């Protein structure tokens, strides 16, 4: 197997990163923080977490580029449109 992320140590590190990013998002929520900068940070965090799950956990790092691009584009589009919806609400 040439799948580095399927080695337990790499997967464990990624799990730890996901936990830390989740705690960050939770802290933002508990502090009732809002506004464009905070929302951009929260959405960027969600995007990074999603990519980690897609690439490392689902194992798409090892698959044909077309599938990786589709999933990347999907996640980016959804996060960007959520951000756009938020921005429209600021008007």
């Amino acid at each position, binding site marked *: *197997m040439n*799948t580095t*992320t*399927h*080695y*337990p140590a790499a*997967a*464990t590190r*990624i*799990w730890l990163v*996901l*936990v830390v990013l*989740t*705690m960050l*998002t*939770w802290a*933002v*929520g*508990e502090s*009732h*923080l*809002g506004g464009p900068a905070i*929302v951009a940070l*929260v*959405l960027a*965090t*969600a995007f990074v*977490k*999603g990519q980690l*799950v*897609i690439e*490392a*956990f*689902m*194992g*798409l790092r*090892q*698959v*044909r*580029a077309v*599938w990786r691009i*589709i999933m990347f584009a*999907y*996640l980016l*589009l*959804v*996060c960007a*449109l*959520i951000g*756009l*919806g*938020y921005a*429209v*609400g600021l*008007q």
Partner: protein
Amino acid sequence: MTSAELTLDRTRGNPLPGDFAIWIFIFAELGVFGLLFIAYAFTRAGDVELFNASQSLLDRRSGAVNTLALITSSYFVVRAVAAIKRDRAAVCSRWLIAALGMGTVFIVVKSAEFYAKFSEGVGLDTNTFYMFYLSLTFFHYMHVWMGMVILAVVAWKAAQGHYHAGAHTGVETGASYWHMVDLVWLILFPLVYVIR
């Protein structure tokens, strides 16, 4: 470049993990959830005050604990796939059972959250925010149940010796579905519980 080389080039990299049929399902599910998320974001833009006021009444701790539960269960599923690739069926089965344990945490926490909201008299017709909150989270909740049924079947089959290093598509199929359930929640949690 000859046509044979072109063919080789196009097939570089592995196919999607698991049965391709599950990926059709995964793409369809992601499409539906994506549209619902975007619909939420733009509907919120029309009544920001109502959404912010209702959102502040949600149990963020439940949402965060459930995020941790799904992330951890996804990690356990990665370990299960790694185990079967090394021909360790019993270990694979145990990781899947651990993942089911985390899935159960999610179900218990989310059920308690639904119960608390219904006890407060909150329903689909309370307001637009709650219509989205209940629909989105309940739709996802059903997917967690579905994923747990799949993981339970795969765990049982792994324990029975149905999979080994040379034949583990079933494990990867279940794993892919479960990661999708996790992925959807990773967007749902910040969108509904945090963004304001």
